C-alpha cells in the first residue's frame, strides 16, 4: 500500500464518510472507492461486482476475482444529555467502539474542559443543541440528568426523529412519571415503550462505572441489531 493511500484513509475516516478500499491481491495495488468516484484501470472490469459489495457493505474477496474490498462506514452517533459523572465513564468505554459522541448540557459547571477532554460538548439546552446537529435514524440518545426540563425535550426530539436507540437514566418510578409526561405530550404508547428505561442491561451493579458499562452493553447490542438489519 502506498503511504498516500494510508493518509487518504486516515483523512476520510476523520471526515466520517462512507468509502471502501480496494486491493488487487495479485498486483498489490490499492485504490479508494466511493459511489462518486470512477474506478482505475485495474478495477474497472469488475465495476458491477465491486458496486454490489460496496452497496451491501460486504467485506471480503469478491467472487471470481483477486480483489479484496474493505468498507469503512460512517460511525453511529451517540448524543449524551447530561455531563454528569456517568458520562465521564461512558466516554471512556465508548471510545473503544468507533462511535461519534456529543455531550449536551446547559449547565456550565458540568461541561468544563477539565472534566471532558477530546469530546464534543454543546453547552446549550437540548432543543437548541439538537437543532444544530443534522440527526438521522443512525443516532442514539442517552439521557442522564433525570431532570425533566433537560431530559424531556431531548427525548421528544429523539422520538420524533426516530433515533434507533433511546435510553433514559432514572429509577422505575422516575421512568413511570417520564412516560406519563410523554403520553400527555401526545406520544403513542408504542413510541414511549421504545425508550430503554431504566437504561442499561441488568447485572446488579450500582456503582458509576457499572452503570456506564450496563448502558454501553445495551447500546452495543442495539447497534449490532440495526447494523445487521440494514444489510440484510
Amino acid at each position, binding site marked *: *500500500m*502506498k*503511504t498516500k493511500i*494510508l*493518509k487518504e*484513509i*486516515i483523512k476520510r*475516516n*476523520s471526515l466520517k464518510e462512507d468509502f471502501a478500499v480496494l*486491493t488487487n*491481491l495479485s498486483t*498489490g495495488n490499492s485504490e479508494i472507492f466511493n459511489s462518486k468516484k470512477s474506478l482505475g484501470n485495474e478495477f474497472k472490469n469488475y465495476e458491477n461486482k465491486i458496486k454490489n459489495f460496496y452497496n*451491501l*457493505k*460486504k*467485506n*471480503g*474477496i469478491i467472487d471470481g476475482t483477486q480483489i*479484496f474490498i*474493505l*468498507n*469503512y*462506514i460512517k*460511525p*453511529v452517533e451517540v448524543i449524551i444529555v447530561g455531563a454528569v459523572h456517568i458520562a465521564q465513564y461512558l466516554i471512556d468505554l465508548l*471510545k*473503544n*467502539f*468507533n*462511535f461519534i459522541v456529543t455531550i449536551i448540557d446547559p449547565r456550565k459547571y458540568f461541561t468544563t474542559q477539565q472534566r471532558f477532554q477530546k469530546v464534543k460538548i454543546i453547552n446549550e439546552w437540548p432543543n437548541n443543541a439538537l437543532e444544530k446537529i443534522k440527526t438521522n435514524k443512525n443516532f442514539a440518545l442517552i439521557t442522564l440528568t433525570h431532570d425533566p426540563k433537560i431530559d424531556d425535550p431531548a427525548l421528544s426530539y429523539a422520538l420524533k426523529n426516530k433515533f434507533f436507540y433511546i435510553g433514559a437514566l432514572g429509577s422505575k418510578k422516575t421512568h413511570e412519571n417520564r412516560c406519563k409526561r410523554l403520553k400527555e405530550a401526545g406520544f403513542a404508547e408504542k413510541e414511549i415503550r421504545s425508550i430503554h428505561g431504566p437504561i442499561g442491561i441488568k447485572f446488579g451493579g450500582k456503582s458509576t462505572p457499572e452503570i456506564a458499562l450496563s448502558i454501553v452493553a445495551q447500546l*452495543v447490542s442495539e*447497534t*449490532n441489531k440495526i*447494523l*445487521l438489519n440494514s*444489510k440484510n
Partner: protein
Amino acid sequence: MRECKINYFLGNNLNECMSETILKSANSWIETKKKVVLATVIKTWGSSPCPIGSKMIVNEKGDFLGSVSGGCVEASIINECLELIKNKNSFKKIHFTVEDESAWSVGLACGGELTVYIEQIN
C-alpha cells in the same frame, strides 16, 4: 483444505481496531522513518475469531499493534512481516489452517481458518 463455510463479513461499525487507531499508528511510525508492514484478515472460514478487515501493523524492530487472530498466529505474522521487509518484497498472502503444521505450532485452536494479506506501506 477442509470443507468449511466461508464467512463474508459485513462492515463492522464497532470495530475500532479496524480503522483509526492502527492506521494512525502506522502513519506515525512511517513519519519516524520506520519500515511498516500492514497485515489484514482477508478471508475467514468457520470460527476464526477476528473478522475480515481486522488489522495489525509490524515495524522492522518487531514492534506490533492490533490483532488478526486473538493471539493464535500473531508470532508467525510478525516473522512473515520481518521477512517481507528483509527481502524487500511488497506483499504476500498467508493462509492458516488447523491441518497446517505451522498453524498447529502457533496454535490456531479455534478450529477456524484464515488468510492474512501482508503489505509494506511505502
